[in-house]
């Protein structure tokens, strides 16, 4: 459904993303892994349309929305209808839970604003839709009426996920969306995302520097180093039998490959800890 071909981004002389090619099938879940500075965020922002690519193609269901798109070629701005249509293709959740929401806007209002941008609904149905979305991510009425500063990091990311889902996107990009959270909260959000994928069929592009999380959320993964893809394949295969030395190094740097936070409670696992 999503096809990225030869994607490239230059900042001046510096090549941040170099010849990145992959595809994400419908209902699929692909992880992009790489250490900080490897070009993951830049790739995500180009796919979402927040950054202009220097070259390559981004296609959603065969339709160009990257540098080859006619308006981008002519350096024209998108019409607002087109922008909303793009919003129904791809949404994104960002790394920093503290600035992902407008600090002056109540959580329910933020989700309502997102819904209203995509569906013309009478007030009662809008309210019902907002409640449904918040319920899906596990937020209650009290949290909906709260300002972001009254919520924990995990709750804010849930709110950001609900807001993204308001557009009913085909693809949800998560750029280190759980990296700033406590380990047990990370596991909750990962479970929530797996659940959402199963219920709504939203494809996930899961960006992380944490190999541990990948196994639980993604079918396939690709490994980026210095802007290039160095390894690409099913998660189990890559983790079990990494081909590229960089991938091996990444795997070696995780203390226990394939941990789940729950295992901390397991006495056998606890005994193995130093």
């Amino acid at each position: 459904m999503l096809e990225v071909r030869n994607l490239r981004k230059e900042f001046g002389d510096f090549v941040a993303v170099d010849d990145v090619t992959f595809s994400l099938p419908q209902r699929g879940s692909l992880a992009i892994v790489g250490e900080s500075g490897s070009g993951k965020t830049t790739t995500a922002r180009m796919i979402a349309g927040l950054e202009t690519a220097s070259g390559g193609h981004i296609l959603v269901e065969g339709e160009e929305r990257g540098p080859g798109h006619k308006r981008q070629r002519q350096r024209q701005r998108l019409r607002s209808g087109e922008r909303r249509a793009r919003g129904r293709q791809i949404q994104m959740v960002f790394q920093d839970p503290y600035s992902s929401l407008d600090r002056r806007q109540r959580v329910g209002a933020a989700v309502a604003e997102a819904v209203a941008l995509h569906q013309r609904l009478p007030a009662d149905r809008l309210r019902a839709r907002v409640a449904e979305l918040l319920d899906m991510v596990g937020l209650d009425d009290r949290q909906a009426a709260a300002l972001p500063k009254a919520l924990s990091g995990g709750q804010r990311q849930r709110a950001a996920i609900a807001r993204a889902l308001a557009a009913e996107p085909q693809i949800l990009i998560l750029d280190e969306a759980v990296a700033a959270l406590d380990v047990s909260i990370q596991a909750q959000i990962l479970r929530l995302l797996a659940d959402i994928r199963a219920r709504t069929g939203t494809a996930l592009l899961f960006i992380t520097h944490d190999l541990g999380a990948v196994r639980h959320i993604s079918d396939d993964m690709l490994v980026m180093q210095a802007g290039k893809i160095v390894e690409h394949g099913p998660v189990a295969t890559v983790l079990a039998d990494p081909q590229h030395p960089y991938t091996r190094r990444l795997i070696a740097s995780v203390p226990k490959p394939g941990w789940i936070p729950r295992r901390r409670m397991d006495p056998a696992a606890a005994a193995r800890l130093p």
Partner: protein
Amino acid sequence: MTSALFARTASKPRAGRPRDRVTLAAGCVVGLFVFLAVCGPLLVPHAPNAVDPLNVHAGPSATHLLGTDDSGRDLLSRLIAGTRASLAAPAVVIAVSTTLGTLLALVAAWFGGWLDRFVSGALDVVFGFPGLIMAVLVAAVFGAGLTAPVVALSIAYLPLITRVVRSAAIKERNLPYVSALQLLGAPTARIWLRHLLPNLGPLVLVQATIGFGYALLDVAAISFLGLGSQPPDPEWGLMVANGAPSILAGAPQQSLYAGLAILLVVVAFNLLGTGLSRRLLGEQA
């Protein structure tokens, strides 16, 4: 997480601290003068321009609480009636420069690139000109009266507000919630009006408050030089100038009280501005 909690408890100023009482007092003084600017002409005990040749340079008395000036006019009435003239011109200067400056700052921050460089460069040039001297020059060219100096000062105050708001707007614009709104397809106008501007509002208010004191001082200086308000207006800067010859005659009250009024209002606006900045922007000043 812990640092956020700590910051919340540490930055929340409790009411009743000395610094907050100063801010409150400054706010009351500002409020009083704004009230006088609006209602002053209805409250004056005497007609502010009524001369009394038999009662010049009178000292304080029951009928003239602050005494009279060189023409026997009641000083208290003139000070009260002059509040409007003294505050209106700086209010226009601040309203124009704040509105235009905020708009320029948002445009520069939002579009970036050459537009940002152009705005910043142009403002650097304007900033290079001393505002008061420019205001005096245009008054000299276009004749006395407040219109030309107010226009000149509005332009001169632009860089101050624009610079501060621009750097805050760049930070705000780069927050992920703005990207999220763009991804949802929110119209740019909506992002500006419903999100960016309200979030920048406290900063704009603080800048406008502090700027007001300085603008008032500049306008008073222009009138003091005889290039702004004209006699017999009871504008404070003009009153300071009018009273100056009488100081040597042993009757300093006109210059003294008008000068004190200017001082009080300028200090009050400055203290209110810094207090608001501490409260609204959480500065640990």
